[in-house]
């Protein structure tokens, strides 16, 4: 197991390093590159000073070297537009994205497990068809539009929930107030992520149902519910676990747009602001941080997977 863990961690580090290479050089080799970002509204001298200050006179490889050495030490450079350290900006936003993401992940997983199980139990019946319709809708409806519709319905028409932000100015940030702000964005995000979980749960349960031990359990006359929960479900959970890595990646993509719809001050919104303002250090930092979290989550999923299913360790 130790060798397996070491190998997986090393692979994660390599992937992360490659992520840094790909994103850095995409930006720094683009025509104009970062230096184009500070060309407007500045005189020639100011431009010169800025280019020098941000080290943009160095050749790209040197720039990358300096950046990656700093990054490893936790120094991601300074935002062009805000003049603050990138690390500080990211850390301000990260907790908000984690709150939203975790809430959406839990909701999507529970909902997906429930619907997927129902679909498998009532295979090919009307329940199955309803579930498959819901999950195809979840795959097809743009999350940001669903968010807008939810705002129209629950904030504008019914006035049940706030339309945007993370706390209201009057609510003084009580827990209830925070939860009320969380419901719509997390719900919408969960709805778009849920189809992945539904599909895997359904097919995993159907797969397990064909296994000999389930047939034996049924054959010795156990109640269907007992077979489902004591025998089938436990084994079906393994593939579901595996899909959570994929869902986390999708979560970050989805949160970029959802955070903008609901004015949620998270990492995704920061990335959008940075993209609009061509704030390269910030967008590099945000992408790398998102990549780091995805890699770590996938690593944890792999390790859990190996702990649950010993065959994986000896691949």
């Amino acid at each position, binding site marked *: 197991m130790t060798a397996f863990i070491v190998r997986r961690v090393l*692979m994660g580090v*390599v*992937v*992360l390093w*490659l*992520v840094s290479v*790909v*994103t850095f050089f*995409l*930006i720094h080799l*683009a*025509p104009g*590159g970062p230096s184009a970002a500070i060309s407007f509204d500045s005189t020639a001298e100011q431009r010169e000073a800025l280019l020098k200050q941000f080290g943009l006179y160095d050749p790209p490889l040197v720039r990358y070297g300096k950046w990656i050495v700093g990054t490893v030490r936790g120094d991601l450079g300074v935002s062009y537009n805000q003049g603050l350290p990138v690390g500080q900006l990211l850390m301000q936003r990260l907790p908000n994205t984690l709150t939203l993401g975790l809430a959406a992940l839990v909701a999507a997983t529970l909902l997906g497990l429930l619907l997927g199980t129902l679909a498998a139990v009532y295979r090919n019946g009307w329940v199955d068809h309803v579930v498959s319709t819901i999950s*195809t*809708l979840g*795959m*097809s*409806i*743009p*999350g*940001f*539009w669903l968010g*807008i*519709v939810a*705002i*129209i319905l629950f904030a*504008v028409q019914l006035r049940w929930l706030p*339309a945007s932000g993370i706390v209201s100015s009057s609510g003084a940030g009580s827990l209830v107030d925070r939860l009320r702000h969380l419901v719509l964005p997390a719900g919408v995000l969960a709805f778009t992520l849920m189809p992945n979980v539904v599909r895997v749960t359904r097919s995993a349960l159907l797969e397990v149902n064909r296994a000999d031990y389930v047939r034996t359990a049924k054959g010795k006359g156990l109640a269907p519910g007992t077979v489902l929960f004591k025998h089938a479900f436990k084994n079906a959970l393994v593939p579901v676990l595996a899909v959570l890595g994929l869902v986390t*990646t*999708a*979560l*970050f*993509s*989805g949160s*970029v*747009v959802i955070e*903008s*719809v609901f004015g949620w001050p998270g990492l*995704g919104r920061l*990335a*959008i602001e*940075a*993209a*609009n303002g*061509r704030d*390269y250090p910030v*967008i*590099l930092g*945000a*992408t790398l941080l*998102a*990549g780091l979290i*995805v*890699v770590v989550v*996938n690593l944890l999923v792999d390790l859990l997977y190996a702990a649950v299913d010993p065959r994986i360790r000896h691949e």
Partner: protein
Amino acid sequence: MSDAAGSLIQAGKDDARKAQRARFWRRVRRQPVGIVALAVLVLLAAAVWLGPLAYRTAPNRTDARNILKAPTAAHPLGTDELGRDVLARVLAGGRVSLSVGLLAMVVGLAIGTLAGGLAGYFRGRVEVVVMRLVDVFMAIPNFFLILVVVTAFGNHPVTVIVTVGIGFWAQMARVVHAEFVKVRGFEFVEAARALGATHPRTMLRHVMPQVVPQAIVLASLGVGWAILTEAGLSYLGLGIQPPLASWGNMLQNAQSYLWLKPELAIYPGLFIAATVLAFNVLGNALRDVFDPRG
């Protein structure tokens, strides 16, 4: 070989082909929902490309005196915040969104098939390099990757198409790679090689046809994904730029008028959802047609 034997073999081949075709159409007929989805897509395409021939209102003409108007005979879906005709913009936006979706799918599928195919066919070092690159692209959440590219290279429509395509080449490559590895091991491929077929010929004539059904399914699902992504990007102001309409960027300003005129935010989204839904349903139906056991 005598002519008679030759024609007999030919007749046998024709029969086999006919039977195969009949089986295929039988399976197609078992997918009524998929057929409906295809019909919806054909209708949508006809509406956005041929519609403007019948409905001649200009999508970009502003009219300061007719802002945010309710539907009338002249403007069946009303007007937006600049007095532009919403129906004309929905049609024009559909043209852009469908084109971007289709072309981005072609880009993603082309890169993915090439990379995945080479990796799965040659294995060894090529496979290690390509698949590690796939891991890298899978580790960067799509939208962040796309933001990086758009920030660096700007948002010309061609850039948007390539960018969205790059957003999902890795997924395509993974599937195509697995298929190539599987098919490569079959005897008929080995036989082709033994008979002296070159690598390119073996790949294109013998392996590729087996991968095509999977690729078609992926393509259908991919267009849906590409349309969603372009819509999100344009909604955020980073994709297709106004005044050129796209379903995504029509929603960009609509959010400011939610309290005044919520319908503005409804129409483009309905079209996106219907189109993507049709592509997803079509993709799933195609999967069932090509792989009835699944």
